[in-house]
């Protein structure tokens, strides 16, 4: 952690090198290497079972890799040694494939819980919501178009609204790096376009990794694309570049 600055492995925000993990003999991630720079937005595509979600599990501490390095913040932090909570508090936020919000809380409370603040027990027992907090919540509600729903139970929201609420919660956390897993699954075309706008907007002052199946959406994001296949990187580059790669075509269309 306290390495000499000239002696660093990486200057990237997130650096994965030679990462492997297997479940009961099945190699979900196989010698995966990936680098995300500060301020970068990256789209990750790949067929089902390519290891996209497992990769996110590894970055966020849910799954420990069998081998390999997962370094964060210029290589200063070894993420494999930390648990989910610590990693979240380092500024890595995650949106799940299946939208998970706190269904028994109001939309507003969901955002309140996500707001960047001390996560300790005592500060939260004696918590006072300040004007600044309220303003920030209003702002996020505005961005995610949920202002009208602020007092509803999150469980009563539509699927798309839950997706947006979850993105809103990511905004509330104000992480350095956002990991967004299939943000437009189950959305209408209009919603998809709006989400793309929203993510591009967020990417202005955050690093974002988006995992998505929807090619139109990835095209709309207009960022560098990484193709995962069988747990490792198959191709990397602009979308039209990788989609013309023969190996990628083979993987997607079959032999």
């Amino acid at each position, binding site marked *: 952690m306290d390495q000499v600055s000239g002696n660093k492995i990486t200057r990237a925000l997130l650096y994965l090198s030679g990462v492997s993990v297997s479940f009961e003999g099945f190699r979900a991630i196989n010698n995966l290497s990936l680098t995300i720079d500060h301020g970068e937005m990256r789209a990750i595509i790949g067929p089902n079972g390519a290891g996209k979600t497992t990769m996110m599990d590894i970055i*966020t501490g*849910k799954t420990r890799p069998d081998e390999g390095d997962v370094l964060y913040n210029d290589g200063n932090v070894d993420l494999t040694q930390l*648990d*989910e*909570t610590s990693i*979240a*508090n380092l500024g890595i*936020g*995650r949106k*799940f494939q299946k939208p*998970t*919000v*706190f*269904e*028994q*809380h109001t939309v507003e*409370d969901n955002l*309140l*819980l*996500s707001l960047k603040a001390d*996560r*300790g*027990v005592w500060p*939260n*027992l*004696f*918590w006072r*919501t300040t004007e600044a907090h309220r303003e920030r919540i209003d702002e996020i509600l505005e961005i995610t178009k949920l202002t*009208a*729903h602020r*007092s*509803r*139970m999150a469980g*009563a929201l539509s699927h798309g609204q839950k997706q947006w609420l979850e993105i809103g*919660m990511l905004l509330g*956390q104000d992480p350095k790096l956002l990991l967004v897993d299939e943000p437009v699954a189950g959305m209408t075309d209009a919603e998809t376009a709006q989400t793309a706008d929203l993510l591009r907007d967020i990417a202005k002052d955050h690093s974002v990794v988006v995992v998505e199946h929807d090619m139109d959406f990835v095209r709309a994001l207009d960022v560098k694309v990484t193709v995962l296949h069988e747990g490792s990187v198959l191709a990397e580059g602009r979308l039209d570049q990788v989609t013309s790669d023969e190996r990628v075509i083979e993987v997607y269309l079959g032999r």
Partner: protein
Amino acid sequence: MISRAIFENNVGGTIFLGILAILAVMVPVLHLAVPEDSFFHVSTSTVVVFGKYLSFALLALSLDLIWGYCGILSLGHGAFFALGGYAMGMYLKLQTSGGAPPDFMVFLNWKDLPWYWWGFDHLSFALLMVLFIPGILAFVFGYFAFRSRVTGVYLSIITQLLTYALWLSFFRNDMGFGGNNGLTDFSTIAGYSVQAPETRAALFSTTAIALMAGYLIAKAVVESKLGKVLVAIRDAESRTRFIGYRVEAYKTFVFTLAAMMAGVAGALYVPQVGIINPGEFHPANSIEMVIWVGAGGRGTLTGAALGAVLINYFKTIFTTGFLAPYWLFALGGIFILVTVFLPKGIVGTLASVDWRRWIPAKRAPADEAQLKPEPAE
């Protein structure tokens, strides 16, 4: 959602506190000042029985904190109640023996008090232990269990193992807690005879006040942002971790707090019923108290207390008359009915009914509408 506010927070809670305040004052008055032949006289047995119910209500309240609000189903919560009870029992026992080793130690030929009995001749020390012993056990147990992410039924089972291990331990004579018979034959508490009507009345009022205090503390906890984190953990534990909350710390906190409240409940229970024995540790007791909370309404504080009083009232009616053989049928039936048909419990179900449909003309009071604004649709 207005009705939710009424039954959970404001009106319901106020009524609850009001009733307790009235009981705390009126029961002693009716017991002591009203002549025995009067219709309004409250008999000794009624004072004792209702005092017991109120201590159970406090116990249920504490269990609701962890189960109703944080989703931790402890099947060993009775252990903390019993430990609090034993701490109080030790004080009462030393009052009786005048600080010398109590009768059962004499039978064991123990000349001196074992070290873990030291200090229990002081009420203040005993009261501290009533909080600390359950609290420390819960903290240590919870710290390790929650850190290892033992959740769901696994946690339920190991809490059950915990109370089972204590149950076996306290049966052993050489533990120095009276073995099978437990601690009983108390004479005085703080210098007053435990049998005296005045003492009984005072104990009853103390229990009612403790329940009010417990309710207010629990209410403050669940309404704080910490309370929201607890509910978040209950509904989506892993999500809560991913936004940076240290779930194990929150669980350990609420588990320890609940254990301390249960300890207080146990300490109030023992001088009123006059005995504490290893039976209180039996796993079946701990499971039974879960259904008090379930029947009254998990996740509603007043519901937990109400459930404890109601079910124990039924239990008294059933087990004292010709219905005695049917009590287990009734109790078993309650377990099934509550889980299958009434998962929100009595108060929870009442709170989720949209009362405006029945009283369409009347508008909700403004202040409540402000506290919990109406949903958009």
